[in-house]
């Protein structure tokens, strides 16, 4: 009963546009006040304790890496290099778009940052070269899904801390699914350009090509620091984030790609994003505490197990619920709310926590591409000027490869667990 009231209050407050963190906090605090054995001091401690963790420090640092890379126009440099590689292949700009998202995702852990960086450069240039605006925007949106899966991924860090798995393992687990998405989208581009022979781009001079590729090389050292450092056991994820951030800041300032004022703006942006996400994390920590105290996860697990004891059915239900949740909530908030409830249930079904984490992150990220609150759609509309209706129309066919990948990831756990098991 108490649980139902809390969840109901939470939903009503969300619909009334109370910010997510405060919509979570209000019913939880009332619960704390109503219970004589609890004090507000405990609530405050819970709020602070959620953040007081070394692995979580990777979140602001990786957000910083993404912001600095964006401010210094590093996506631009990557795209120029990729264009020379794909050259005059039919549909080359489409492939460049997908590959650009892949390379940029090695520095950024969020889909919206990815969509903003790629959309502003790739969509105008694709339209100039004869691609439809809706296809260009839709492809960019779908390709931005690589960002939250491919390490470094903010979602993976949050999940790892909530689930008590290692951040490194979660990172590694995302690599193969992200590559599968990349491959799926390349096939999509292939089918699109097969019937459109005019989709080639201009020939690039050899000299220009060499300088474009050389210009991108220092940027590509960042993923080597991050992935190589973590996989090679040189750094923890948090340390890798710090080293990569210092490297990118020095690179950006040293080459003049950004000035001090750009850096300050990037840092303010990082702080604001950190505040927005982490206050929800703290509120989520209190919610998890309250729910656990009321035995909510256990009750939900019992009810579900009575319904079905097949993990396959459970995973279908989970996918549907998460997709719906992702349609209305921003992924980080949805992750922070859902994991404490879903994880204990999934463990009852014998599902691997790492596998579950990738399923949750992928599901919630896809919600960024669907109305009514698909943030990536709005970002693409803002940075490209393509009408929202057209963006949505272009995204729909691009959702097909994404949903196929989601099913693959859900029902072939090996896609996720293969790489972490090797290490």
């Amino acid at each position: 009963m108490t649980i139902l009231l809390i969840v109901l209050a939470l939903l009503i407050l969300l619909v009334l546009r109370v910010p997510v963190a405060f919509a979570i906090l209000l019913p939880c605090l009332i619960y704390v006040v109503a219970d004589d054995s609890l004090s507000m001091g405990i609530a405050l401690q819970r709020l602070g304790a959620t953040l007081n963790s070394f692995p979580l420090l990777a979140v602001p640092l990786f957000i910083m890496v993404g912001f600095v890379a964006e401010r210094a126009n590093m996506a631009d440099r990557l795209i120029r290099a990729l264009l020379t590689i794909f050259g005059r292949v039919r549909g080359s700009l489409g492939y460049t778009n997908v590959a650009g998202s892949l390379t940029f995702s090695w520095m950024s852990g969020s889909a919206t940052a990815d969509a903003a960086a790629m959309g502003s450069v790739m969509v105008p240039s694709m339209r100039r070269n004869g691609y439809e605006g809706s296809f260009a925007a839709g492809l960019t949106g779908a390709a931005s899904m690589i960002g939250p899966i491919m390490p470094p991924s903010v979602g993976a860090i949050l999940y790892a801390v909530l689930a008590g798995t290692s951040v490194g393992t979660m990172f590694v687990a995302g690599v193969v699914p992200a590559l599968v998405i990349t491959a799926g989208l390349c096939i999509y581009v292939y089918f699109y350009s097969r019937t459109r022979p005019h989709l080639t781009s201009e020939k690039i001079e050899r000299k220009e090509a060499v300088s474009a590729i050389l210009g991108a090389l220092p940027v590509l050292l960042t993923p080597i620091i991050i992935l190589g450092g973590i996989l090679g056991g040189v750094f923890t994820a948090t340390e890798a984030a710090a080293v990569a951030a210092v490297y990118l800041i020095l690179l950006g300032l040293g080459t003049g790609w950004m000035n001090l004022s750009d850096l300050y703006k990037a840092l303010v942006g990082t702080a604001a994003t950190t505040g927005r996400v982490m206050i929800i994390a703290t509120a989520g920590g209190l919610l998890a505490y309250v729910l656990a105290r009321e035995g909510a996860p256990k009750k939900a697990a019992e009810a579900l197990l009575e319904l079905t004891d097949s993990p396959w059915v459970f995973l279908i239900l989970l996918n549907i619920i998460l997709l719906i949740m992702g349609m209305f909530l921003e992924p980080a908030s949805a992750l922070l709310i859902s994991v404490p409830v879903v994880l204990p249930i999934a463990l009852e079904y014998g599902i691997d926590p790492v596998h579950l984490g990738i399923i949750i992150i992928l599901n919630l990220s896809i919600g960024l591409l669907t109305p009514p609150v698909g943030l990536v759609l709005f970002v693409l509309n803002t940075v490209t000027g393509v009408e929202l209706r057209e963006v949505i129309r272009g995204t729909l066919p691009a959702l097909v490869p994404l949903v196929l990948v989601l099913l693959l990831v859900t029902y072939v756990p090996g896609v996720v667990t293969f790489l972490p098991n090797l290490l």
Partner: protein
Amino acid sequence: MDSQPDTGVKERKPFWRAYLVLVEIEKAIAVILLLAILILTFGQVVARFLFHSPFFWTEELARFSYVWLSFIASVFVVAERSHIAIQLFENRLPRRIRLIVNCFSVVAVIVVCLMISIGSFHWLSETAQGRSSALGIPTGVLYGVVSISFVAMALHSVVVIAQIIRADRRERTQSDEQRRIRMSIGETAL
């Protein structure tokens, strides 16, 4: 993402100017804490590689800075009205209902902030007596900053309500003007 922050408007009145300066100061504090996290974590790596002995206090200070950063950043995010919220039917609501919903959502924020800051006051001053293991930072200081941040969020929210009402009034006078223009066009047409 919320509507454009009202704070960007050029203000002549000293109160609003001072308020904008305050928000900028909060941003600067957040950036300093962020840089502290970066330098401390990076320094830890350097210490481990160069001296083969990590500092014992860097991690703790970085973690504490992170707690403070998150809450202080939340304060100026309140001022900019850009905390994550669900934006359904944003512009489709009638003006009066939009005003009520907007004000309600801010009042809910204020209630939460006051519950936490007032409710934890006793605990902070009486019970929280411990000290951190590495640096000996009192528990009261660690959580005190959190508590103060919620007070600041409540104060910012009061200003935000004033801004919402001002924006609404501007919209109303504008629509009055538009009505008058429409009427005058109608009169000349007749």
